[in-house]
């Protein structure tokens, strides 16, 4: 026989399969046996994995107590009589206590693998609390000790019973009887919780049923305090794996936070609520939420992932997929498959699923809360469970998976509708059961409601002309339908549900980019939440944060600031300082701080976020970008891109968001070709994700247009501008984008196209106003479109409507003032500014805005220079680190004729803004220098300003006016491309 080893060795060195085969044919010749043998060795070689590469199994002391029957021996004061059970943790003996009293007890010897001293110490730490427990459904734990061989043991009340699930099946208890038996279990757990004891290992084997007086079944929860003593190892990194694996026990009843096993999430009473949920699931369906076989087979990390992430099927769904087993399961419950499914579907599903929420704050707060809901079901009262958690999941879903926007939105309606009817249905169901008990009624009512809701959707889309028809719009309208139903009182009797639904609708609006519509819902949600929960409550805090963030996004910073600050402070009271839920709130707070130019504080917050979640770097990037630390930002973004891609894959919306951020940084660094490539990647990804109608998409098109234009690729740029515009006009909340795009097109002489786009946007607004006439920002938005078209009469009319709706808001007055100023009515503008000041309330942003309106327009400034100066000085002293406020002051000083001081202020603004908004300062620096007779410097500033403007803000209406003002003063020709009719938003970008 030829040398199998030599052939094998040579063969595996040949990578190419064809060549390898040829070699084998040659080497083995006609020796088929050898050939087969070598081939099987090669196969083994390829399949061997880490065989023999990992070290051999550890050495264990095989002499364990689980293996040796100790009956007849004595441990401490206890004589072991009989072995009565064995579990993952150890062996249980019936024992006789000899001193101080003679009684039968259960003695559990913990199996090897634990540090005995620690176990005993932890048990002793809880011992007093354990001794305080006194409940008929709790088996007392008396004592802990150490056997001679060093194993910890526990002594507890002897319960002669069998696991609750076995008991129920053996006695064929009906679902109702099972629920009744489940109630005292919850009460027992609640009792323990009140004494500060968490069980941590609730499962059927720890809930035994024994027979009490009159042979009445009495459930007894055993092993309180033992899981904590034996399970809660302080896991050091070195020992994490082995100890973890040794200690885990059964994962079937384990809560997600227990599976997490992180140092950050401490297990609390709600972990027991989860386990009770699993128990209830099993009592109803005969199976656990996750399949036993599957968990037993899965690798460890997979088990953890399943528990933490996978949504188990609802009990009724599980029943429906059981096949033949369902017959047995039903028989054990004295019912038939159809009836059992009917019983479980609906309220019982909801109760179980609420207990099984992944996030513990969405579960029942307490075990008794769960019991009460079960009680309500048994008493035919509407249950508390379900709708909010479902909404919540939707919300999370919408936040995470933006690529599925359209789908999400559709789901959103369905779920909102579902929520509306489910709570209503609960009421109705009860009534139905009491009055007639007719299930069919309920179903029909649900169907009617659903159809009614879906048919009511849609007028928006039909009235819009084809090119700008967006699919979101119909969705918006459908949500609007749900809103109207709620407004009409569909949830009048359930304010807590109404609050949750409105907050969710708000978040859904917000995720669709409809911030204006969002904020109205969130405002109402907050009001209701305060009414239901009082001023201090986690729900109230969340609603404040949600509303605050939306307001911030629509520019209502005056109101957003306090809401975000208070909301965050309140949330911190309820959450652990490293709770991941803080990340989102902190991120919002960070954005607020950035907008307030509080860079240092913002960076602190951004770093706090990273301490909580090392991957959450986006806030830091924003901080760095704002401070022009571009290189740092770029490097953080590149890391983020790599990790996002690794985590979510390249085709994921988070990847797109990161691409956008990186592109913007590159753009800011003037790395134009790189930025272009990155935007293009982002847009291609948008196409692949079919995510081409949201604000990020619009921004990418616009920015890519800018980058192309700056490189001189005008035609290519316009392609992208147009795409962005086409989409932008269907988004009422995003009016500044189309307006800006229209300006750019206009600067290129494409005024007709620009006007057409603005008209479409006006149409969008008009439809939105028809649906939601009481939302101020819709009126303002339309006014801004009219203003951009220089149709001031219409603009004033819309602003006036806004002022009527919200006379207490300085911003509405300020908007009208800006329109008056542009339309040649300085006296009316001045009056509105005075009104705005009454409500400005020490708000730097407000003073800046108003001062700007006055300083930008010479005729208005001339009417009341003193007021303008006062406003500008106040705004810059309130926000001394904000460049734009110094810019305003510089303008005012220039208008006031104080050219030296104006130059100081403008220079300061330039320094603070580090190159942003250069021309806003530079045109005035040119004019101030000119006035002082420094003509060369003036011309120099002017030409730099023109260059910057052409590159960064071509056609920007307001800048164009300043440019014209400067060129007149410097006796230079006017800009050719700019039609003088166009006017611009008064507010600075």
């Amino acid at each position, binding site marked *: 026989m030829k040398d199998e*080893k030599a052939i094998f060795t040579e063969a595996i060195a040949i990578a190419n399969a064809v060549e390898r085969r040829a070699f084998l044919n040659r080497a083995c010749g006609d020796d088929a046996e050898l050939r087969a043998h070598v081939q099987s060795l090669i196969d083994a070689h390829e399949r061997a994995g880490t065989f023999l590469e990992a*070290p051999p199994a550890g050495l264990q002391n095989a002499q364990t107590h689980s293996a040796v029957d100790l009956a007849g021996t004595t441990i401490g004061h206890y004589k072991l009589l009989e072995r009565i059970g064995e579990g993952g943790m150890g062996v249980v003996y019936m024992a006789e206590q000899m001193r101080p009293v003679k009684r039968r007890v259960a003695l559990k010897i913990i199996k090897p693998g634990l540090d005995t001293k620690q176990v005993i110490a932890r048990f002793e730490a809880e011992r007093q609390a354990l001794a305080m427990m006194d409940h008929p459904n709790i088996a007392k734990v008396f004592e802990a000790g150490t056997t001679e061989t060093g194993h910890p043991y526990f002594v507890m009340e002897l319960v002669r019973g069998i696991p609750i699930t076995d008991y129920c099946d053996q006695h064929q208890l009906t679902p109702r009887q099972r629920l009744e038996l489940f109630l005292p279990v919850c009460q027992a757990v609640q009792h323990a919780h009140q004494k500060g004891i968490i069980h941590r290992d609730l499962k059927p084997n720890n809930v035994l049923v024994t027979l009490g007086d009159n042979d009445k079944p009495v459930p007894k929860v055993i092993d309180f305090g033992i899981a904590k003593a034996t399970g809660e190892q302080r896991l050091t990194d070195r020992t994490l794996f082995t100890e973890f694996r040794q200690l885990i026990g059964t994962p079937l009843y384990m809560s997600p936070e227990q599976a997490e096993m992180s140092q950050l999430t401490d297990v609390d009473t709600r972990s027991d609520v989860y386990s009770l949920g699993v128990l209830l699931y099993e009592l109803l369906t005969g199976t656990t939420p996750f399949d036993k076989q599957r968990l037993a087979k899965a690798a460890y990390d997979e088990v953890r992932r399943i528990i933490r992430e996978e949504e188990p099927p609802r009990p009724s769904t599980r029943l429906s997929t059981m096949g033949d087993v369902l017959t047995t399961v039903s028989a054990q419950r004295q019912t038939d498959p159809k009836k059992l499914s009917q019983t479980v579907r609906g309220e019982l599903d909801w109760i179980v699923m609420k207990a099984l929420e992944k996030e513990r704050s969405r579960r029942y707060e307490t075990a008794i809360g769960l019991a009460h809901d079960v009680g309500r079901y048994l008493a035919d009262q509407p249950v508390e469970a379900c709708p909010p958690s479902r909404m919540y999941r939707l919300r999370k879903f919408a936040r995470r998976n933006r690529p599925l926007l359209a789908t999400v939105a559709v789901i959103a309606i369905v779920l909102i509708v579902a929520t509306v009817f489910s709570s209503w249905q609960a009421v109705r169901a009860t009534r139905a059961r009491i009055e007639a008990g007719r299930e069919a009624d309920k179903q029909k009512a649900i169907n009617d409601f659903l159809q009614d809701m879906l048919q009511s959707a849609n007028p928006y889309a039909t009235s819009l002309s084809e090119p700008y028809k967006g699919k979101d719009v119909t969705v918006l309208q459908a949500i609007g339908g749900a809103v109207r139903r709620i407004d009409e009182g569909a949830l009048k009797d359930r304010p807590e549900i109404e609050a949750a639904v409105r907050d969710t609708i708000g978040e859904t609006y917000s995720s669709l980019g409809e911030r204006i519509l969002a904020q109205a819902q969130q405002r109402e949600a907050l009001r209701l939440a305060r009414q239901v929960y009082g001023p201090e409550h986690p729900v109230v805090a969340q609603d404040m944060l949600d509303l605050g963030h939306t307001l911030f996004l629509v520019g209502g910073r005056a109101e957003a600031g306090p809401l975000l600050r208070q909301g965050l402070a309140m949330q911190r009271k309820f959450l652990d300082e490293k709770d991941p839920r803080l990340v989102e709130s902190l991120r919002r707070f960070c954005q607020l701080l950035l907008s307030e130019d509080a860079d240092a504080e913002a960076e602190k917050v951004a770093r706090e976020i990273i301490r909580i979640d090392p991957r959450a770097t986006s806030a830091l990037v924003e901080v760095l970008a704002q401070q022009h630390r571009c290189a740092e930002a770029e490097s953080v973004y590149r890391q983020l891109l790599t990790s996002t891609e690794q985590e979510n894959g390249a085709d994921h919306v988070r990847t797109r968001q990161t691409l956008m951020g990186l592109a913007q940084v590159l753009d800011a660094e003037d790395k134009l070709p790189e930025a272009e490539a990155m935007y293009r990647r982002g847009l291609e990804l948008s196409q692949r994700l079919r995510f081409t109608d949201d604000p990020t998409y619009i921004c990418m098109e616009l920015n890519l247009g800018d980058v192309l234009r700056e490189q001189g690729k005008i035609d290519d740029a316009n392609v992208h501008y147009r795409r962005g515009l086409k989409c932008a006009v269907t988004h009422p909340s995003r009016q500044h984008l189309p307006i800006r795009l229209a300006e750019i097109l206009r600067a290129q002489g494409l005024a007709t196209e620009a006007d057409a786009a603005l008209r479409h946007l006006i149409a969008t607004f008009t439809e939105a106003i028809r649906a939601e006439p009481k939302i101020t920002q819709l009126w303002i938005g339309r006014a801004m479109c009219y203003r951009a078209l220089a149709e001031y009469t219409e603009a004033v009319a819309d602003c006036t409507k806004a002022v009527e709706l919200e006379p207490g808001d300085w911003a509405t007055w300020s908007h009208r003032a800006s329109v008056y100023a542009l339309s040649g009515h300085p006296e009316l503008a001045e009056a509105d500014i005075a009104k705005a000041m009454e409500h400005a309330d020490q708000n730097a942003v407000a003073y800046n805005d108003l001062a700007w309106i006055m300083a930008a327009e010479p005729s208005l400034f001339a009417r009341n220079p003193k007021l303008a100066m006062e406003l500008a000085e106040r705004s810059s002293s309130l926000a001394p680190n904000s460049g734009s406020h110094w810019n305003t002051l510089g303008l005012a000083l220039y208008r006031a004729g104080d050219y030296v001081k104006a130059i100081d202020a403008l220079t300061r603004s330039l320094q603070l803004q580090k190159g942003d908004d250069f021309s806003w300062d530079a045109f005035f620096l040119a004019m101030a220098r000119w006035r002082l007779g420094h003509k060369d410097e003036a011309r120099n500033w002017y030409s730099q300003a023109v260059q910057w403007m052409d590159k960064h803000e071509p056609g920007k209406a307001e800048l164009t006016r300043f440019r014209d003002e400067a060129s007149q003063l410097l006796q230079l020709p006017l800009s050719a491309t700019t039609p003088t009719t166009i006017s611009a938003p008064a507010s600075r970008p």
Partner: protein
Amino acid sequence: MQNPSIEDADARCAAVTQLLNQAKAGDRQAAGDLLPLVYDELRALAAKKMRQERGDHTLQATALVHEAYLRVLGGADAARWDGRWHFFAAAAQAMRRILVENARQRGRLKRGGGGERLNLDDVNVTVDQPPDHLLALDEALIEFAQKHPAEARLVQLRYFAGLTRDQAAEALGISPATASRDWAFARAWLYKRITETERSDEG
């Protein structure tokens, strides 16, 4: 050396050192006598650690070998001393024996030790390989050693004593490249043998 089993640890260490010196000088008898001494040393060390650290702690076999080595030979010189390979050869063999005994014992206890069948939801997730795996490997190794003794020694050194490829190559007096080839062959051979056995057991 009629009775190499020595109760006292220090005496045992001294005896091991002496035997290693003799083995290095070419005394084949000495090399053979090493085994029971090293075996005792490893068992004693394991038992001591079990007592010290935990009631029942899982000890890593290869770590134990290296610790025993340091205990027996001590000090920095040991790392360069030629005789050390004799020690590891003996230790690998001893450790293999210990592990197999341990696995046999555990296997016996699990099956016949009087415990009821465990419920599925009571079974802990565990890192330990099933005892059968070691026993199967041991059987396959015996067979392999008859045909390929040098390669089997390599497996023993690497797997049971935890030597790296280069260390094992040095111990066996072969080149690292040869060690790589032998290792690939041995792994494939043993894997094939064990999986064949498992399949025929199932069928």
